[in-house]
């Protein structure tokens, strides 16, 4: 049996590695996504004071520390039985909306977008953000840099630091904002809405008006009919900061809608001996292996999943885009993995609109941004939507608030099984009996998992280009038959 090893040399708690096995006929027999590292947060946080968790768990991921910071802070509210004042909730959601805009921007322009803007078959050296700049002009590079800089500037202004903010507390936040800061936040938020609209127009011009790309998006190689998960508000609209978690089936029908606290009734995690990262699945459906369909507990938690799991968007411009999205792609739900890029831009627009809404809320500069907990801490769960999926923090403590139990299900982990499946399917579609494996394989496979914005590519969010990838094909004796690599120089 031949083996193809793809070593992205990037990370979620370490590097990610994909092994594709070919059978004797030269067809794909199986594919494995391996995560070769663990750091043990669930264990070493035990014994720590619960209030440490927003800062400790931020160190799970330096690309999206805001997500862990926020899930941890919400878990502390629950743990200490304290309801933050309205201004505190609004400040947190404002902060979180700014984070989402920043994070989605970097993914689209640095990671996912180049495949489409420059083209999936363009020379690898051009298929990066520099290639995007060449193709669409320097002023766009300026816009992207400004968006990122604005986002990080405000994250630091509100939360203390650009990377690893230190701000969340049970019952609120450590500091509010003043009127001068609010005005700046509002102005930059209006810029962000313009930027999101501009990005959607760019996607329209470059991708949707190109029939080859549309064919690629709708092609069978990138379809997975799985369950979809996302957080919704009281009107079943997408929300990143708070709400109920909703799961819809491959047919779009609601499978479950639950409070964060009840997550254990709905999600379980499977252990495989060949990866340090567990494989979550829907408990009531059960684990049936790496397969899609209504009888398999595999689910996805991505921007596309969130749109599928909701009935709409809570802001007007994003809602219009949401409708256009489903009109264009043949109705709900959409199972085309590559449509995740479009969904991400709709979320970008929503986050920017929400940013402005909250920045212009009369209560946002209130001094009532904190209340002190008065009850004995016991147990708490906090969920937010991380850019890469539903994020769950679950803590239990003794009566002094010292942690006795910690459970974490992080964004990309939700998608551990689907990413493996997507890689296998994409590989099956391009690796055919008797055909030489070409460089095209590399990018087709790459595109399959890049759509998930997997966080084992943490830092790739921010750099020119794509994940460094290498594919090695060996014969059954281990001898290298062919080797391809694609790196940005």
């Amino acid at each position, binding site marked *: 049996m031949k083996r193809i090893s793809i070593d992205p040399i990037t990370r979620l708690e370490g590097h990610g590695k994909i092994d594709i096995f070919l059978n004797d006929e030269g067809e794909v027999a199986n594919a494995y996504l391996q995560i070769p590292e663990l750091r043990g947060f669930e264990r070493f946080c035990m014994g720590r004071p619960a209030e440490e968790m927003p800062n400790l768990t931020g160190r799970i991921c330096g690309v999206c520390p805001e997500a862990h910071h926020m899930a941890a802070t919400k878990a502390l509210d629950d743990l200490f039985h304290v309801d933050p004042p309205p201004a505190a909730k609004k400040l947190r959601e404002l902060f979180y909306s700014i984070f989402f805009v920043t994070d989605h921007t970097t993914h689209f322009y640095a990671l996912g977008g180049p495949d489409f803007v420059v083209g999936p078959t363009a020379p690898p050296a051009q298929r990066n953000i520099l290639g995007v700049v060449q193709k669409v002009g320097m002023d766009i590079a300026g816009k992207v840099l400004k968006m990122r800089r604005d986002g990080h500037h405000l994250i630091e202004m509100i939360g203390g630091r650009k990377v690893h903010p230190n701000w969340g507390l049970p019952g609120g936040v450590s500091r509010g904002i003043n009127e001068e800061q609010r005005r700046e936040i509002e102005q930059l938020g209006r810029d962000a809405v313009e930027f999101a609209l501009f990005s959607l127009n760019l996607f329209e011009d470059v991708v949707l008006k190109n029939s080859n790309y549309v064919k690629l998006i709708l092609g069978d190689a990138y379809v997975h009919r799985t369950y979809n998960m996302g957080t919704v508000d009281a009107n079943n609209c997408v929300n990143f900061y708070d709400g109920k978690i909703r799961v819809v089936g491959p047919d779009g029908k609601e499978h479950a809608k639950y409070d964060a606290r009840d997550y254990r009734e709905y999600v379980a995690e499977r252990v495989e001996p060949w990866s340090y990262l567990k494989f979550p699945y829907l408990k009531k459906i059960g684990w049936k292996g790496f397969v899609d369909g209504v009888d398999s507990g595999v689910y996805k938690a991505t921007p596309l999943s969130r749109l599928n799991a909701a009935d709409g968007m809570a802001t007007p411009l994003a809602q219009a885009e949401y409708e256009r999205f489903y009109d264009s792609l043949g109705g709900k739900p959409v199972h085309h993995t590559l449509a995740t890029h479009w969904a991400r831009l709709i979320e970008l627009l929503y986050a920017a609109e929400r940013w402005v809404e909250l920045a212009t809320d009369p209560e946002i500069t209130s001094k009532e941004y904190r209340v002190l907990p008065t009850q004995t801490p016991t147990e708490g769960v906090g969920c937010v939507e991380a850019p890469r999926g539903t994020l769950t923090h*679950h803590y239990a403590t003794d009566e002094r608030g010292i942690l006795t139990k910690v459970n974490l299900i992080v964004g990309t982990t939700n998608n551990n099984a689907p990413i493996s499946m997507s890689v296998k399917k994409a590989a099956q579609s391009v690796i055919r009996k008797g055909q030489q494996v070409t460089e095209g394989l590399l990018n087709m496979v790459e595109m399959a998992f890049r759509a998930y914005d997997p966080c084992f590519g943490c830092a790739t969010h921010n750099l020119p280009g794509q994940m460094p990838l290498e594919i090695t094909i060996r014969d059954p004796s281990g001898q290298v038959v062919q080797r391809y690599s694609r790196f940005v120089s």
Partner: protein
Amino acid sequence: MSGTTKGKLALYWAASCGGCEIAVLAINEKILDVAALFDIVFWPVAVDGKVRDVEKMPDGSIDVCLFNGAIRTSEQEYMAQLLRRKSKVLIAFGACSHEGGIPGLANANNRRQIFQTAYHDTPSTDNSSGVEPRPKTEVPEGALHLPVFYDTVRTLDQTVPVDYYLPGCPPEADRIWDAITAIVEGKLPPPGSVIGPDTTVCQECPRVRNEKKIKKFHRTWEIIPDSETCLLEQGILCAGIATRAGCNARCPRVNSPCIGCYGPNTGVHDGGARLMTALASVIDSNDPAEIERIIREGIPDPLGSFYRFGLAASQLRRSKRTNGATAAKTE
């Protein structure tokens, strides 16, 4: 480095979160200046990341390697040794490679305990057959390999000799640029030094300091501090008093205590002990029993509070091993 030849720069990550990579990018357009001054010969996220190309480079052919992350697995250990051999100057970049960082808190446990929690005890884990990840697994199609997960988190300099340290979780963009400038201008401090100022966070903090007389420590959720006065004076355990400057006191500026991510000052062998000593000196009592009571009641987790980032580098280093805890092949 001469003015005409570009230097060779490598960047690598081990047990870390990726925040150091983001911090490098936070120097914004100055990253282009870096690209003008250096050929980046190895940076897995950005350039040709083939390990075997590094293996082929002559020893000492990389001018500077910025290495972030602690050492927890066999793979990370190998990369630390490889990059040490290939680099003239190896810089421990960020709190994890410098002092073990937050992942170093795992040294209060061992591999067995970490696996027990992650793969068995966590409430959403469904593992009735008792499976655990292992270095080699036979699947129907062949063998799959994982790096060995060691019992102990080590700092970079507990693994290989290190020339300089750039502290912080993550280092602030300005400090990164200072370090790059020092490298380019040949103005590095003596080998073994931390690159950065040698004052404390208190020196950068805008809060008003009076005489500190602490009768009681408060958990952060127990009081709402005023926004002008020194947090430590208000009874909040702020590590700024024993933490190296460099961040511009960013956390105290948003009413949050310093958590000590820049580590201790030069000459301090154990950051946690230094912080404890500093606190003892501001407690309003001369009675050892009362001092102990004030610390015990207000600081329920001394290990995590005093060695939050520095356990792996400290004199404590790790919890005592018991039988069965040393299965990993390291040390």
